[in-house]
């Protein structure tokens, strides 16, 4: 071992975006520091300046090919604020349906296509077979379920929005077209199969957890705050509500926070080694104000789901720990419970007597010069904040994305995993995969978080104390 070393993993694989990891070793060859670097930059906030505000939902959807619907929703809500309108009740419900379909397909992508190789084949599996083909070989039903569940969500988006990626159906003031009876019936017809897939995948996942006791103990298993939007009754929601924050013991730290006043309690810090900003809870300062968002956080802050099967599973989930559920490995578990909730909630909304109403859009001119829209994206809380001039042209934009809010926790998680699994100055595939797998728990979307054009990959570097690169692993 040379004095002063570091390991670089570049690129990180099976995530959404381009990044690298640097592990710094001390003079004893032990991991001392870990950094998760996001190496892409795009600057959407600047690109939008000067554009008419009503273009924002469509422009913002272009940030991401996986969760464009979340950006559409948050952007449209910010524009609703600029119009100062209350959208028609049916439009509100249709937007919720759109969002639930998006969460289902995005969670399915994360769990089945990106993480199921780790869960089914094990963390030490040969990287050459640790992919969807390896899953299809060992458990064809699981691979088929992943494809079918993702199709289920995508087809709802296509039915409502006209296309699977970058649909422009959600507009300021509501949605552009009502739901047809034929489309409603087609979605309802597909619900039982989707529910059955969610149920059996959840059972399968729970049956595998015992194999991952060591990973559960060190995959981001540390105290942080957890933040999410909840309904007035503290139930799970993806569309609208109040911000709630709980601490590691599960106690409520802040409740009834107004999402449109996010800047009062969320700070952002820029680090010189990454394009991804780090968010923190202002009252606790940086870095003590580290918090997590996304499925794990949402289930930690919510008292209930509000649908029968998801409520049963949430109660079981809360039994995992007497405090808040801390290990980021449980993001996978939370993701599956949320899929169950989404499917149940879709059925409730589609059977609403108002859902076929033709009144789906409120029309107005801008009535305010500043607007904030917030919603729960698959990966966590999403804020869009716009300022316009008297002509309705965008003058200033701020976007706070889930992956940025998880950045501090992801860095700590990489450090925790690396300290536990990485020894010496060479990387083994098992070490490398666990470092990557802990990041995959968060399902980071780096295209979203840097608002950047994405390339899919990761790089890990092992650095000595004097900065010399001891080992480096790159994957296409």
């Amino acid at each position: 071992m040379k004095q002063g070393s570091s390991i670089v993993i570049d690129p990180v694989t099976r995530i959404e975006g381009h990044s690298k990891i640097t592990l710094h070793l001390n003079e004893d060859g032990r991991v001392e520091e870990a950094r998760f670097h996001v190496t892409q930059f795009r600057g959407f906030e600047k690109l939008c300046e000067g554009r008419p505000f009503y273009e924002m939902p469509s422009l913002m959807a272009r940030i991401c090919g996986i969760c464009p619907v979340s950006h559409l929703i948050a952007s449209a809500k910010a524009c609703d604020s600029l119009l100062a309108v209350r959208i028609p009740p049916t439009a509100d419900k249709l937007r919720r349906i759109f969002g639930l379909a998006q969460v289902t397909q995005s969670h399915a992508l994360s769990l089945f296509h990106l993480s199921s190789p780790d869960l089914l084949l094990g963390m030490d599996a040969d990287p050459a077979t640790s992919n969807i083909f390896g899953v299809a070989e060992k458990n064809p039903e699981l691979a088929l379920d992943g494809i079918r569940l993702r199709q289920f969500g995508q087809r709802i988006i296509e039915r409502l929005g006209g296309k699977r990626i970058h649909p422009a159906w959600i507009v300021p003031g509501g949605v552009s077209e009502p739901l047809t009876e034929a489309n409603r019936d087609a979605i309802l017809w597909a619900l039982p199969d989707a529910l059955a897939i969610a149920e059996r995948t959840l059972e399968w996942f729970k049956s595998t957890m015992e194999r991952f006791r060591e990973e559960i103990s060190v995959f981001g298993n540390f105290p942080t705050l957890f933040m999410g939007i909840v309904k007035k009754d503290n139930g799970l929601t993806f569309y609208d509500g109040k911000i709630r924050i709980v601490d590691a013991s599960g106690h409520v730290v802040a409740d009834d926070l107004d999402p449109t006043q996010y800047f009062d309690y969320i700070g952002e810090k820029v680090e010189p080694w990454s394009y991804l900003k780090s968010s923190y809870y202002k009252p606790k300062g940086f870095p003590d104000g580290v918090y997590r968002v996304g499925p794990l956080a949402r289930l930690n802050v919510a008292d209930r789901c509000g649908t029968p099967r998801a409520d049963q599973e949430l109660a079981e989930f809360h039994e995992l720990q007497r405090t808040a559920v801390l290990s980021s490995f449980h993001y996978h578990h939370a993701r599956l419970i949320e899929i169950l909730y989404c499917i149940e909630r879709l059925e409730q909304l589609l059977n609403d007597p108002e859902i076929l109403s033709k009144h789906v859009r409120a029309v107005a001119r801008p009535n305010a010069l500043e607007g904030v829209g917030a919603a729960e994206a698959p990966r966590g809380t999403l804020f869009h904040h716009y300022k316009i001039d008297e002509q309705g042209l965008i003058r200033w934009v701020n976007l706070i994305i889930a992956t940025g809010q998880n950045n501090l926790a992801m860095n700590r998680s990489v450090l925790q995993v690396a300290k536990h699994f990485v020894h010496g100055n060479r990387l083994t595939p098992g070490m490398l995969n666990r470092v990557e797998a802990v990041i995959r728990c968060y399902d980071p979307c780096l295209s979203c978080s840097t608002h950047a054009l994405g390339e899919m990959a990761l790089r890990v570097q092992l650095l000595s104390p004097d900065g010399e690169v001891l080992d480096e692993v790159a994957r296409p």
Partner: protein
Amino acid sequence: MARVLIIAYGNPMRSDDGLAWRAADALEGKFSSLQVEIVRTHQLAPELAETVSRCETVIFVDAAFADAMGNGSPGEIRSAPIGVPQAASRFSHQLSPAAVIALAHQLFSAGPRAFSVTLTGQCFDHGESLSPLVAAALPALVARIEALVQQLLSFKTPPACNKA
């Protein structure tokens, strides 16, 4: 399900990378929708394996890069059958055409005949227009695909699946 599935893929906001979408637009209406289905997509995801499994023949249309070895020059059209690969590459979000066929075979026991038709691009920068060279070659690309489809539809029974 149509007998022939045309999958036009690429990013229409990256100049020539969107040429397959332009070809798809030009092919729209040339064939009965009962016989030919056209799908436009940004990239090839695993879900396409199910769509592919329900047709006799798949034609993947894409923009190609001119590589550093001098293979392919901007405006050049290439067409080739796709075999079932013996080993699949690591998956992130996108698959190769051969991997989509392999997944259809593995999960759905389907063996559609598959072809790749590419046009080598010149410019892949941000933009929604094609480079002049590629725009000029687009009608020839469309004609090549049209001729291939006509030939495939002339078979009364599905031809055997390509072998690797």
